[in-house]
């Protein structure tokens, strides 16, 4: 029973752990709020998934202003994880998030390991949560003292292991690029059972007002994001792609369809838009369309042939 030759539909769908995304494009934690503020400017339902601003156990005030400084092709931020805490998040934000109709990935953060565990447990019982992004890479946490979890392979392993026990939701570990060898941390997260990795969080930096001789950020240092970091983030994704077998959500300076495709070619299963949302809140719609066009014009039918397709010739 051979029917007439049908034009094959393009399928942009990808899978991250148990999460099925209808396309590989999502947003980076902290750069999209929970979607609400942008609903008039864009079509939230088109996203492959939404990743929330990082939520902590208790409410946090965040850092002193200024919290933003623009730099060449990028921006520094030192928000300091301002948020209302998990209770208010579940009460105020989850009803809205649930209603968008796309997978909801909740980013969680904390200073101590057990805060993460408690958060994971809470979200496990919360209706409408598809996955957890474990932000062990925020450079703007105060009182961190000995560095971030994700600057230490052992700490990363231990924490992810415990979080995996605390929840059956998909666990995505978000790593900092401010390390000597990100593949070591990635392997630790992978060995501990992380379902996927988000790469990368921001690069620590600073800027100075030479007239006042003060830092441009109230918190002195902050995290660099935006197009400036794209080459660095891309290498982090490529290196990790060659080291572990779990899916990667790539991010760092994505501003165009070409940027997103670069990340995919380097091995990212999904791609998140970050700072670009501040400038063009509707950009992801353009990128999803652009990606579909690229797939089509390269005579592919789904994401498989593109993901990790970098051609590297041996000498």
């Amino acid at each position, binding site marked *: 029973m051979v029917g007439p030759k049908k034009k094959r539909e393009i399928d942009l769908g990808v899978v991250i752990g148990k999460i099925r995304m209808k396309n590989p494009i999502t947003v980076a934690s*902290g*750069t*999209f*709020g929970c979607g609400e*503020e*942008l609903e*008039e*400017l864009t079509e939230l339902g088109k996203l492959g998934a939404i990743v929330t*601003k990082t939520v902590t156990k208790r409410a946090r*005030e*965040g850092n002193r*202003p*200024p*919290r*933003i*400084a*623009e730099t*060449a*092709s*990028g*921006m520094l*931020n030192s*928000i300091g994880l*301002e948020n209302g805490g998990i209770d208010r998040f579940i009460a105020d934000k989850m009803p809205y998030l649930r209603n968008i109709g796309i997978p909801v990935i909740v980013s969680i953060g904390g200073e101590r390991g057990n805060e993460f565990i408690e958060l994971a447990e809470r979200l496990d019982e919360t209706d409408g949560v598809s996955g957890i992004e474990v932000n062990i890479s925020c450079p703007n946490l105060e009182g961190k003292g000995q560095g971030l979890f994700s600057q230490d392979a052992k700490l990363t392993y231990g924490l992810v292991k415990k979080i995996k026990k605390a929840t059956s939701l998909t666990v995505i570990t978000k790593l900092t690029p401010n390390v000597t060898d990100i593949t070591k941390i990635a392997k630790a997260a992978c060995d501990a059972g992380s379902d996927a990795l988000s790469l990368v969080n921001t690069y620590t930096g600073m800027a100075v007002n030479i007239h006042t001789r003060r830092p441009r950020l109230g918190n002195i240092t902050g995290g660099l994001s*935006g*197009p400036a970091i794209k080459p660095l983030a891309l290498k982090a994704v490529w290196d990790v792609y060659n080291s572990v077998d779990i899916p990667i959500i790539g991010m760092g300076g994505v501003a165009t369809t070409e940027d997103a495709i670069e990340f995919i070619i380097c091995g990212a299963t999904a791609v998140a838009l970050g*700072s670009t*949302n*501040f*400038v063009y*809140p*509707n950009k992801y719609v353009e990128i999803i369309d652009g990606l579909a066009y690229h797939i089509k014009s390269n005579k592919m039918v789904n994401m498989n042939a593109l993901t990790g397709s970098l051609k590297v010739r041996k000498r």
Partner: protein
Amino acid sequence: MKIQRRAKILSNKEIAPERFLMRCEEPAISSIAEPGQFLMVRCSDGPAPFLRRPFAFHSIRDNGFYILYQVIGPGTEVLSLREKGEGLDIIGPLGNSFSPASENGAVMVAGGVAVAPLVALAERLPKKARTNSIAIIGAGTKSHILCREEFRRLGIKVEVATEDGSAGRKGLATELLKKVIAQTENRKPKTAIYACGPKAMLKEVAKIAKQKRRRCEVSLEEKMGCGTGICLGCAVKTTSGIKLVCKDGPVFNAGDIIW
């Protein structure tokens, strides 16, 4: 209602040294914009600067709006080079707006180019309120005193202070404010104060308002990443916790701010 559009630039002129007045056509945004609200502007269609820049509605009329801006850095620099006929990528109207003044009018206080949104406020005052209103404009020097004529044309009295004494009273706008307040002490209900300008000035205005028990609204400025409430970059401490200048403001009751 936030809208992203390409407005059409109708003119862009240097009206005082380093101060530009840009007129744009954009009916959808203008028809809903209120005095005090602002726009996020992509100053150039090129890659730099990366972020949008916030500008207040300086005047809202004729299917469009005006912005009045000072060239201060890379964003305003490229903005000043934009030409008539070009498209300008904007998001707006954003933020809250000034509350309407009573018939008793408004005392408006501005430092420098921050006078911009007070003109939009003045334009919307009922005629009676305007004759009872006064605009106090402070600046470093005479050539930086802006909008004097705009207020006068609306029938609003203007007082000027310059730091170098080249126009009006020598000194700060806040000193003039004290004088004006003393003069209108007996009016009931008390005239409200609306202030825009550098933080130090606003702090002083807030102090005066508190002492004299005047309702006082200030329009704050903070470095903005998005203008839409998603980056949490523009935080300000208030008596009811952290607020966002772009979403909860830019207009705040002076008494609510922890200066």
